[in-house]
């Protein structure tokens, strides 16, 4: 089995081994042209915490990876929140609209049955609204709470545990749509667009799974660690 990614590896080797890392680089605003630089060097040049970058990559590619909570600073946790916000933004303003465009190409194609088109569009609109409220809860409630903790203020009546308990699955309907298109779409639709849409759905599903893992296995333990240290600090003073 391969070892977890480390900061001394070359950035180019890392990306060659796993294309998922491209999305992570892009979201963090890390610019290409790595040459022979190591992960640590590239992150330093781009003012991104290498520790957070590596933790996100390791979570994406290794099921057994467990980050060490003690080793993250507050500014690194803030970097993670920034990454998660950027991910939400990318999902809602880039990925979902491009999927919507595919769907509208399919439903407005010559062979389309207007009744079926209406059904598909309605299904996806409903799903988009669900996503919207899922992400906006995190953007407006969870992340501000974390930012508060980082500045030493803990909002009463909320804890990261609550978020963890209610963290809902957002991939289920995406997978349903995949199966509907793959197995049950009637003949007569432009197949190139359908396949293009399917690839996007598979990639986005993978991204959503990863995103949830970063939240559950990095953000939640980091914040609950901070909550505990805040508690003991308050007791001590």
């Amino acid at each position, binding site marked *: 089995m391969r070892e977890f990614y480390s900061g001394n590896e070359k950035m180019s080797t890392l990306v060659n081994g796993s294309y998922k890392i491209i999305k992570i680089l892009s979201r963090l605003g890390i610019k290409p042209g790595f040459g022979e630089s190591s992960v640590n060097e590239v992150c330093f040049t781009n003012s991104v915490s290498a520790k957070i970058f590596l933790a996100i990559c390791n979570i994406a590619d290794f099921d057994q990876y467990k980050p060490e909570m003690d080793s993250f600073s507050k500014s690194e946790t803030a970097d993670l929140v920034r990454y998660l916000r950027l991910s939400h933004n990318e999902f809602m303003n880039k990925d979902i609209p491009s999927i919507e465009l595919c769907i509208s190409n399919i439903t407005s194609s010559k062979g389309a049955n207007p009744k079926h088109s209406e059904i598909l569009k309605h*299904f996806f609109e409903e*799903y988009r609204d669900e996503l919207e409220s899922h992400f906006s809860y995190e953007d407006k409630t969870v992340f501000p709470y974390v930012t508060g903790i980082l500045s030493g203020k803990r909002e009463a009546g909320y804890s990261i545990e609550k978020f963890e308990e209610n963290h809902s699955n957002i991939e289920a309907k995406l997978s349903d749509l995949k199966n509907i298109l793959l*197995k049950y779409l009637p003949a007569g639709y432009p197949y190139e667009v359908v396949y293009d849409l399917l690839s996007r759905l598979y990639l986005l599903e993978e991204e959503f799974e990863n995103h949830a893992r970063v939240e559950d296995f990095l953000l939640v333990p980091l914040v609950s660690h901070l909550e505990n240290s805040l508690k003991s600090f308050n007791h001590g003073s």
Partner: protein
Amino acid sequence: MAVKFRIAIIEPSQILRTGLEASLSSIAGKFQILWSFSSLSHYTSFADEIDPDIIIVNPSLFDQSGAETVKSILSNTDETRIIAFSYTHTSDILSRQFDSVISIYDTPAEIASKIEKTAGSEPSESDSRYPKQNGHPDSYDLSDRELEVLVSVAKGCTNKEIAGIHNISVHTVISHRKNIVRKTGIKSVSGLTVYALLNGLIDQ
């Protein structure tokens, strides 16, 4: 903490059942024997309430001709692995339907390693994107009863209402719904509604 595999055992002999439970429990921390049943009917009466990762079952409880598939009888989810616990001869056609076979002559360590290997492997025929290698390729089509239940689900009926409409038990409704999800790969009610509309089972 390591993930524990949740195991259900279906074995008519009490001696063997207790022996298997004791052997697996002696391997600390890996397995949880959560359910034990003495017969298939005993198991099926609980099937909707439990979700084991692994079912260890005596193959002699099934028809040796393999006419009814093991998976359809156990009606579990695609993720569940089914392991045969065998001490008599099992026909090839039947043993192929299991994800793995353990024998009463295996040591506890051998059994543990087989279970772990099976749990980490792909299910033998779960992927509905590919035609099945054996058995009947049309068995993924919904039965008439399943279609009726699907239509009611798509119309927004609750399990209790569906049971009333079709004069069947809630338990049966749940079992039909499980099969519908397994066959179509569609989990959400709104997804199933799209399926029903696309196939002209309901209009709007």
